[in-house]
């Protein structure tokens, strides 16, 4: 059936173009990221402060994971690292779960043709808006509104309404965490909502029609049609949110009133930044920062692979298996054929 031109094109190898198209990505990546990554890896085996640059083997890992390193304060450093790891997960879960639920709900509402909602476009625009504000400004905004004392807007207003003592929105260990979760949700729910909406709009409308004709109610439609078909975009959201969550830095780092960041909000990213940027070379803990970096990478990679594994495209895998089987059969037949010749 194929024309001569088509046949000619089929015979040309286009592989070299493939390499050319992906070359810039990998060149830039290697230059700007691979070497720093290796360097971080090396740093994680080298000493801290006065010992910087000396090879110390696994001492940094020993210190921050087991509290058994050579530094006198190893156990305390481990305590700090584990706390920061705990905080990272608490803060991530605490903003991811409400965020995805809220976004999903809104996305379904906004794409539901039966719901008559005036100003739908306006709502979408407003809800995405927090996402465009610089995180530094967002932290400053909330610190200035929610400051601990009666000199800040929220507490002043609440106290005008009859509250007796100001609430420590910024320095209380628990309330400040809830505030950070709220701010993160505030920042990101619009973004997630729009991602999910685009996913829902991408689903073939005939499926919804078919479900409606079959008499499915809106809950059934959601769980049987929308959610399964939304899986690829949910995976994308999960993965990007997880990566973002594990490297949460700006808000926890900036949400404080005193001179330094709040230890109750210290995430791993803050731990890394703080140990790496402690002043002069003699003061900085490059080793611990490096080790913490590698540990967070391993955690991300494990969680990421896990997510991918559970959400891998089952059809594709089945197809692949089928293809393999067919290939095997074909080869076997060829062999037989060869023998018979």
């Amino acid at each position, binding site marked *: 059936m194929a024309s001569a*031109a088509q046949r000619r094109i089929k015979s040309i190898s286009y592989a070299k173009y493939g390499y050319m198209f992906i070359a810039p990505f990998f060149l830039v990546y290697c230059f700007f990221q691979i070497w720093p990554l290796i360097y971080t890896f090396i740093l994680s085996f080298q000493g801290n402060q006065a010992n910087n640059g000396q090879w110390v083997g696994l001492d940094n890992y020993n210190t921050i994971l087991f509290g058994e390193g050579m530094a006198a304060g190893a156990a305390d450093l481990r305590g700090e690292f584990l706390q920061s790891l705990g905080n990272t997960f608490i803060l991530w879960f605490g903003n991811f779960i409400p965020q995805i639920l809220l976004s999903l709900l809104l996305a379904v509402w906004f794409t539901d043709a039966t719901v008559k909602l005036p100003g739908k476009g306006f709502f979408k625009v407003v809800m995405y808006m927090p996402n465009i504000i610089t995180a530094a400004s967002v932290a400053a*905004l909330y610190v200035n509104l929610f400051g601990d004392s009666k000199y800040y807007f929220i507490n002043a207003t609440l106290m005008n309404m009859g509250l007796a003592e100001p609430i420590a929105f910024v320095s209380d260990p628990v309330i400040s965490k809830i505030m950070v979760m709220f701010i993160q949700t505030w920042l990101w729910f619009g973004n997630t909502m729009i991602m999910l909406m685009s996913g829902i*709009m991408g*689903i073939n409308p005939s499926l919804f029609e078919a479900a409606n004709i079959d008499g499915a109610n809106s809950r059934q439609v959601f769980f049987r049609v929308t959610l399964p078909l939304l899986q690829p975009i949910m995976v994308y959201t999960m993965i990007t949110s997880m990566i973002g969550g594990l490297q949460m830095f700006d808000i926890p780092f900036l949400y404080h009133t005193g001179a330094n960041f709040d230890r109750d909000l210290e995430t791993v990213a803050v731990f890394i930044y703080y140990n790496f940027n402690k002043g002069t070379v003699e003061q900085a803990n490059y080793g611990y920062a490096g080790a913490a970096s590698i540990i*967070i*990478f391993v955690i991300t990679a494990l969680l990421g692979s896990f997510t991918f594994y559970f959400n891998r495209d089952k059809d594709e895998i089945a197809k692949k298996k089928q293809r393999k089987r067919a290939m095997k059969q074909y080869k076997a037949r060829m062999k037989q054929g060869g023998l018979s010749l």
Partner: protein
Amino acid sequence: MKNMKQQYGQPKDNYHARIMAKSIAIFCVCILLTLICLVPIYILAVNATHGHMDLAKNPSNFWFGSSIGDNFDTLLGKVKTGAARQYSGSFDVVQGYVNSLLIAGCTTGLTVFFSAMTAYGLTVYDFKLRGAAYTLIITVMMIPMQVSSAGFVRFMYSLGLINNFIPLIVPAIAAPAVVFYMRSYMKSSFPLDIVEASRIDGCGEFRTFLTIAIPMMKPAIAVQAIFAFVANWNNFYTQNMILKSDKLATMPIMVTKVLGFDKNVDYGVNYLCVTLSILPIVVIYFCLSKFIVGGVALGGVKE
């Protein structure tokens, strides 16, 4: 006839009433969320118009004050006496916006173009290392920025690229998450036959990409362009480590710096500084909102 109407009319009314109730409920939730999104910014703008003494006496203001001019003069360093002198030259709104826009603009361009290119290469061509390259990109996507940031900053120091926009812009060419997204998009909505057709017409590979693939990927590019712009606009972490000079300070750096003046705190000026870092971008956003949210909603991973 009457009976029939009684029989069939009711469920329909019922249905309408339910839809109506649902719509009203949703509308209320949306109004609430809108308020949560807008009120903090309104309060911020209100407080920016009050003076420090005013705010110290009564921080709970709901309407605009009259000190905006004074706050402006102080923040922009026009007041040359007293405590206000600390602001001299630290906060150059225009410079901050120019630097931030430059960085965010360039990175966005590079990110979407090269990511589309990489995704195209991975989808259209069949080559030996394709699977390996894709796996690598997915792995690389999971490396948090902080992981390599330590090494990255040290490396930039040794290259002498501190106080330079290059380390903030050029790495944007390699944006694994964007490639991941664009590849999914292409897989689902880019027919490979088109490439073949254009080859038959004698169109070069790169031209095919530029003139056929890119226009077809517009929705995906629009989404990722917006996300990339926002991400880089907000990238305080890397900027803070790379840019040390006042002239190169971006908006987030300036805001953090002004708010960091911890010996003489002036509320009104603090509020104004944060307002200035937020309002213009919000106004631009609302002006372009049709395009932005429309664009975002257009693109989606179709499966």
